[in-house]
């Protein structure tokens, strides 16, 4: 199998702001390869360096050390107007003195493309984002969602090698955000352009991406497909940031891990103290007296089809189990009930710190 070519790559990128004692290391030795034509997401909490990485790729900042490569070529010191990379800004940054069509034409005109080509591309872009009737409006006369689409069309019009999107949906309300998520995915598939998408919303990342890089404190913690990241989190940070997770500490003898409550599970892990993670939906409730580890129901939270059971093991460890609500066929375990739980071996993840 041939590897997909790499569209953009960061090699040991470091970015510090400020000098001496007040210096902030926004990116600390970040290396990542983004493949051509993929929908790649940078996911992490606010302040972890996502925008900084995007700005290094766009050329608005130069790395303190390290390199940025586009199609294998070193572009670290190329100014933004010389990079075939466009950005959809969080604030949209539409030109207020230009109409919708003129905004979309801007990049093409700056590249000195022929008039006829500019007109044709603008028409195609207007159709792509379904804004034909708005072509001659000022951007201030548009709704948030429409402005968002103009920003997208403007950045896509020059057919960049890579499109950068910095939390483009965060200013929209929930319903519009869901619509735009689908729209963005469609645009990416129709144009085949590499998208680098920034978000702090894990659900958005999981539903839209081909691959995700989870970041925290200037580091990339894990890169992988949404399924990889969700089912095989590399460390405690990734496991807790993506979805809900139960953490169980224990001691490994190499092939078995003995948990705090004395129960043992057959998991291969390096000898010594280990942390295991398991998703709430993978915790099995064996029944009120059906065996397994004894646990007490501390509280229940009803979510409609699902119910979350907050359980306490015999050593006091808290475990959340998600199961179908009794009406949908789940076990009826009210507060205070004694239940038995089992932890399927293949659902248990051994975490590195």
């Amino acid at each position: 199998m041939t590897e997909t070519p790499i569209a953009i790559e960061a090699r040991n990128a470091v970015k510090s702001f400020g000098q001496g004692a007040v210096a902030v290391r926004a990116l600390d030795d970040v290396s990542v390869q983004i493949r051509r034509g993929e929908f790649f997401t940078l996911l992490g909490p606010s302040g972890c360096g996502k925008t900084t990485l995007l700005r290094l790729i766009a050329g608005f900042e130069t790395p303190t050390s390290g390199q940025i490569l586009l199609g294998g070529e070193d572009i670290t010191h190329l100014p933004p107007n010389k990079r075939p990379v466009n950005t959809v800004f969080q604030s949209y940054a539409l030109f207020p003195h230009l109409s919708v069509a003129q905004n979309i034409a801007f990049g093409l005109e700056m590249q000195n493309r022929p008039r006829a080509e500019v007109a044709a591309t603008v028409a195609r872009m207007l159709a792509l984002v379904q804004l034909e009737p708005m072509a001659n409006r000022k951007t201030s006369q548009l709704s948030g969602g429409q402005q968002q689409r103009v920003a997208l069309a403007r950045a896509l019009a020059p057919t960049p090698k890579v499109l950068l999107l910095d939390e483009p949906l965060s200013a929209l309300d929930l319903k519009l955000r869901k619509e735009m998520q689908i729209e963005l995915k469609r645009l990416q598939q129709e144009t085949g352009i590499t998208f680098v998408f920034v978000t702090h919303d894990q659900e958005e990342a999981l539903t839209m991406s081909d691959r995700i890089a989870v970041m925290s404190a200037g580091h990339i913690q894990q890169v992988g497909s949404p399924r990889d990241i969700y089912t095989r989190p590399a460390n405690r940070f990734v496991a807790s940031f993506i979805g809900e997770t139960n953490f169980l500490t224990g001691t490994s003898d190499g092939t078995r891990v003995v948990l705090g409550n004395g129960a043992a599970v057959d998991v291969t892990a390096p000898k010594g103290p280990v942390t295991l993670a398991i998703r709430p939906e993978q915790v099995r409730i064996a029944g009120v007296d059906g065996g397994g580890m004894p646990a007490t129901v501390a509280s229940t939270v009803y979510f409609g089809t699902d119910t979350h059971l907050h359980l306490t093991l015999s050593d006091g460890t808290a475990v959340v189990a998600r199961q179908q609500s009794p009406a949908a066929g789940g076990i009826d375990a009210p507060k205070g009930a004694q239940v038995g739980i089992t932890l399927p071996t293949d659902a248990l993840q051994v975490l590195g710190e």
Partner: protein
Amino acid sequence: MSSAETKAEAARTRSAWLLSLPALVVLVFAASGPLLIVLAYSFLTPGQYGNVVWDFDLSGWIGILYTKDIFDGTWGLADAHLTIFWRSVKLSLMTTAITFAVGFPTAWFIATRPAKQRAFWLFLITIPFWTNLLIRTVAINEVIRNEGLLNTSLIWLGVISEPIRIIYTDTAVLIGMAYVYLPLMVLPLFAAIDRFDMRLLEAGYDLYASRLRVLRRVILPIVKPGIIAGSILVFVPSLGAYVTPRVLGGGKNMMIGNFIELQFGQGRNWPLGAALSMTLLVVVMVALLVYVRAANKGDNPHG
């Protein structure tokens, strides 16, 4: 509606008018009164020792462009007047251009300082306003005259051996006016640049525009209202400038303002002075209209 209500309504309207009457009277007399007097004087006959004689006469208006030969009494084109008009327009346009060229970077600099420092820089810009115009102009004289600060320093540094003659030339007037009117350009430009969203610069660079094209295609069109306001605030008083050309231009390099003053003083031709004033007023208003129209035309997409 009952007739009582209509009456009450009418009474209210009447009392509103009565209340604003003092303001209206002041407006009419203070604003249009003097103008009407000037307009009337422009159609009268000059008195022997200044003042006017109340006889209808068009010679004030004709005198704008023509002069009467003192020997044979025939009318001929007044070259000297045309020179003065041309110099006034030329110097005012150049003053506007210079204040823009200096004022734009200045305003940009101030607008991009941290918020705390801006008040300080704006304060520096407005300091000259605190001093009398005449004193400021004499100070410029002190800098540029033959034995002034500039020439003595340059000679002392060995750059030149003879003083450069600037004083009492058009250049001197230009330097003086640019200095005096610079704040009037900087302040509206600052207000416009301050409102400018700096994130648009990155959007411009991102979309393949060079620095120069970002300036031309993004910054200038967006801060245009500030440019228009600044240009008007500089051009209009420049055209009517009196003190600066008088002090720095000497007697010879007159501008319209000095020429008008001359008619009311030594020239003893009040109707000509009045006609010149009215002409200046009309020319400025027409020029402004044309300028603002032309400046706003580009705004209209596909227009």
